[in-house]
């Protein structure tokens, strides 16, 4: 029954944090757009989670062909209509959520995995390390992202895996920039100096003092980037170098549906709406989070 004795103390210790959290939630809920964003993102995760149980034609996700059902307009049986080989577009859009979530998460985590350590390294070490890392970062940032991604996928060959590799390569420099700037300013803060003066190791300073103070801008950027990464993956899918057609990826679906315009409008419309709603959700949430977590840097992140 130790826990009952510990609980009040734990509460006491965490009082400040709980108050901060409550304040954050309050601030977030005061802005209607952020609330909309939050629910859109929640909806997106929910669909990704329960997707396989709410689709009506599981076999249509990949290569199923029902020639007798092709190009049907939206109806009760097929709420979003069917595509050129009779697959149910609703099922494919729903499952596409999972694919997009996966793409977004992988790109962001790879980008963070490369960008954050490099940024801290550059910012903390300074000197030639900083110069080298930032120079390389600048090179990557000097080309429009989509173009570089196209060049990389063009070299690696079309496909969803290669598109993710390309987008990860395009994405990490943003995190280096962000974290390096933050680390540079944190390094001069009195609390870091104090830690250094009492003999804390570099390792300890980085993990105990610098990294925790970088988390809020990283979270904000990650939330915004999640939407953007999904959008970029769809872009690549659309121009034909990302996910390849039988796969239920939104961009690729639009790319196919485009050939059946203007009469079969539903093929391109619904996957596009899915992208719009998803990206919008992450953007709005990211905006709201920025106002809450990182008010000083308004307008700095993109």
């Amino acid at each position, binding site marked *: 029954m130790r826990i009952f004795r510990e609980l009040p103390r734990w509460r006491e210790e965490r009082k400040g944090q709980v108050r901060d959290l409550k304040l954050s939630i309050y601030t977030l809920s005061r802005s209607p757009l952020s609330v909309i964003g939050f629910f859109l993102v929640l909806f997106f995760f929910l669909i990704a989670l329960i997707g396989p149980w709410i689709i009506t034609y599981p076999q249509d996700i990949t290569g199923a062909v029902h020639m007798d059902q092709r190009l049907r307009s939206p109806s009760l049986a097929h709420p979003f209509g069917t595509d050129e080989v009779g697959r149910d577009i609703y099922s494919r859009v729903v499952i596409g959520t999972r694919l997009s979530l996966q793409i977004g998460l992988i790109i962001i985590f790879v980008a963070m995995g490369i960008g954050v350590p490099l940024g801290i390294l550059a910012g903390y070490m300074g000197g030639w390390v900083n110069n080298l890392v930032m120079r390389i970062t600048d*090179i990557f940032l000097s080309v429009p992202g989509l173009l570089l991604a196209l060049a990389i996928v063009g070299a690696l060959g079309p496909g969803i895996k290669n598109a993710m590799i390309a987008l990860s390569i395009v994405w990490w420099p943003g995190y280096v920039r962000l974290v390096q700037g933050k680390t540079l300013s944190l390094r001069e803060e009195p609390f870091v100096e104090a830690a250094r003066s009492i003999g804390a190791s570099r390792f300890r300073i980085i993990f105990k003092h610098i990294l925790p103070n970088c988390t809020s801008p990283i979270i904000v950027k990650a939330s915004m980037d999640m939407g953007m990464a999904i959008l970029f993956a769809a872009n690549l899918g659309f121009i034909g170098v990302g996910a390849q057609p039988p796969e239920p990826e939104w961009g690729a679906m639009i790319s196919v549906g485009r050939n059946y315009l203007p009469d079969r409008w539903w093929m391109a419309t619904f996957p596009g709406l899915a992208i719009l709603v998803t990206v919008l959700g992450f953007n709005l949430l990211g905006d709201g989070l920025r106002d809450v977590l990182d008010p000083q840097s308004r307008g700095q992140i993109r």
Partner: protein
Amino acid sequence: MVITILGLSVIVFVVSRVAPGDPAKLAAGPDATEEMVEVIRKEFGLDQPLVIQYFKYMKGLIQGDFGRSIRTRHLVWNDIKTYLPATFELVFTSITFAIFFGILFGILSSVYRDLWIDHILRFFTVTGVAIPMFWLGIMLQLLLAAKFHLLPLGGRLDTMVNPPTLITRFFLIDSLITGNWLVFKNAFVHILLPAFVLSFPALASITRINRAEMLEVLHKDFVLNEKAQGISDGLIIYKYALKNTLIPTLTMIGLRYGWMLGGTILVETVFNWPGIGNYAVGAAVYSDFQPVMGVTIILGLNFMIANLLVDIGYGFLDPRVRYE
């Protein structure tokens, strides 16, 4: 800047050559014999070590030689020269549109804060950056071109219309200079939709940042002072407030210009615009890397120049920057 370009060329080069596919085999076609593949490999120097290939490529690059497309055998530089003006015409039109209306909407939105116009514009700014550009293009095509036949589906000119005498290679300007109204009208209706779509995200973010900056400036004391002196609202906004918002707006313009150069790939694909993005996509799909490299380097260079111009622009807008 030179180092950045060099670095860029190394990255693009390395990426294109570590690729798993064998470009020579791709170019030779599926039923080529081993000897034919070997001949192509020799012809394009693909049998030599990477470092030597790179130096050869760089040597060519300095002389304006971007290599040859392995698929069409065309000189990449010639292709780029053909397609580049179309892209620039589109991108310049879009950025001009985005800057003008972005600043205008930003002012309107901040001056009429929380009124219906502000709500509409804010809704548009949040959706503007989230909307997939290619999808917006397709939807507008569907609506305006296919359904109501108001605008053409794509291309730069109707097939029946001859291009104007080429001076600047921008159809809009060339037809104006030569006084060719028919062509101008035709070029104008063709560029309207792609330029609007390409400018959409930029327009949204320029509006947004300009609104935020305007709101801040309009609450400054000097604005209050001018109001007290009886200076008209229009004059205050245009002459005093707006100038103070232009630096962050300029930063955003530079950033968005880069996005536009990337986005042109999508818009050109949707509208079948005969530009450099379309060209790069066509090559990338066939793993024909020489054109893709060329386009990447050219557009990267263009982006760097744009960034330089933005930096110079700071000096114009804020004298303090000049003295530093």
